[in-house]
């Protein structure tokens, strides 16, 4: 008869994220839950990871991506589309969040078409993940932009204008300190909707705002980041 192995906190730590995400199965899950019954610290750890998972899903935009978006993203990642945990709208940010969740899975699948990363500067002490609303000249919500100052750095822009912006190519520009405008890349809007991500943008700490412009330079929407803390 074999002696029963009690899971240690270190062993639990290796699978805590899977448990929190609800993807742990079989005997591992049973042992993990058994460990949680007797370990307050690991219970708190899983609680934080579960909240993180919820926060991550909460970042997903509240609109449906264009038809075929999932297939294109998963195709670029070399994967077959999988069963989403929530509605299809989540897929709009999947590319960026996939990279964050599975850091190190081998780089980016959503490199911007005209991405031109600038030289990295010094890091800052502000929160690594910042977001700002994209507003039209009439102060209508046009989308949201996310900047992540981690490793790797990334930028993600989601646009939904209820078709007030026609289909076509738009440019993503960042406003840096001193008023410098840097074009990061371009992507396509489909009936006013589109999303785009890019790794390695400029030093996020120097970014004060963002602009969505047409190829001829017309500013369609702007975003303003709060001052560094």
């Amino acid at each position, binding site marked *: 008869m074999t002696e029963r192995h009690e899971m240690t906190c270190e062993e639990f730590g*290796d699978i805590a994220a*899977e448990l929190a*995400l609800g993807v742990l199965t079989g005997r591992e899950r049973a042992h993990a839950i058994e460990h949680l019954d007797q370990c307050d610290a690991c219970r708190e750890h899983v609680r934080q990871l579960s909240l993180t*998972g919820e926060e991550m899903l909460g970042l997903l935009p509240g609109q449906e991506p264009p038809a075929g978006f999932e297939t294109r993203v998963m195709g670029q990642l070399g994967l077959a589309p*999988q069963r989403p945990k929530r509605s299809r709208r989540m897929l709009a940010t999947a590319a960026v969040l996939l990279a964050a*969740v599975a850091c*190190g899975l081998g780089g980016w699948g959503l490199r911007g078409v005209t991405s031109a990363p600038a030289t990295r500067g010094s890091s800052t002490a*502000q*929160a690594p993940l910042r977001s700002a609303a994209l507003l039209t000249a009439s102060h209508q919500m046009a989308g949201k932009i996310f900047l992540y100052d981690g490793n790797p750095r990334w930028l993600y822009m989601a646009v939904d204008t209820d078709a007030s912006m026609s289909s076509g190519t738009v440019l993503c520009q960042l406003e840096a300190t001193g008023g410098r405008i840097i074009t990061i890349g371009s992507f396509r809007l489909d009936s006013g909707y589109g999303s785009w991500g890019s790794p390695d943008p400029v030093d996020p700490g120097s970014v004060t705002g963002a602009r969505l412009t047409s190829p001829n330079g017309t500013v369609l929407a702007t975003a303003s980041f709060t001052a560094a803390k």
Partner: protein
Amino acid sequence: MAGIYGMTARQIAEAEGIPLGTAKTRIRDGMEKLRSAYLREDVGDD
């Protein structure tokens, strides 16, 4: 992949062609980085 699509470590390993242990490590490390990021953000918002 685990967080958005609910893929298990084994499914991710098969899809990516990587060892199961590597997939599990990446899930763990990715979530830990996100957790740290959110914790820092919460502190910054206080």
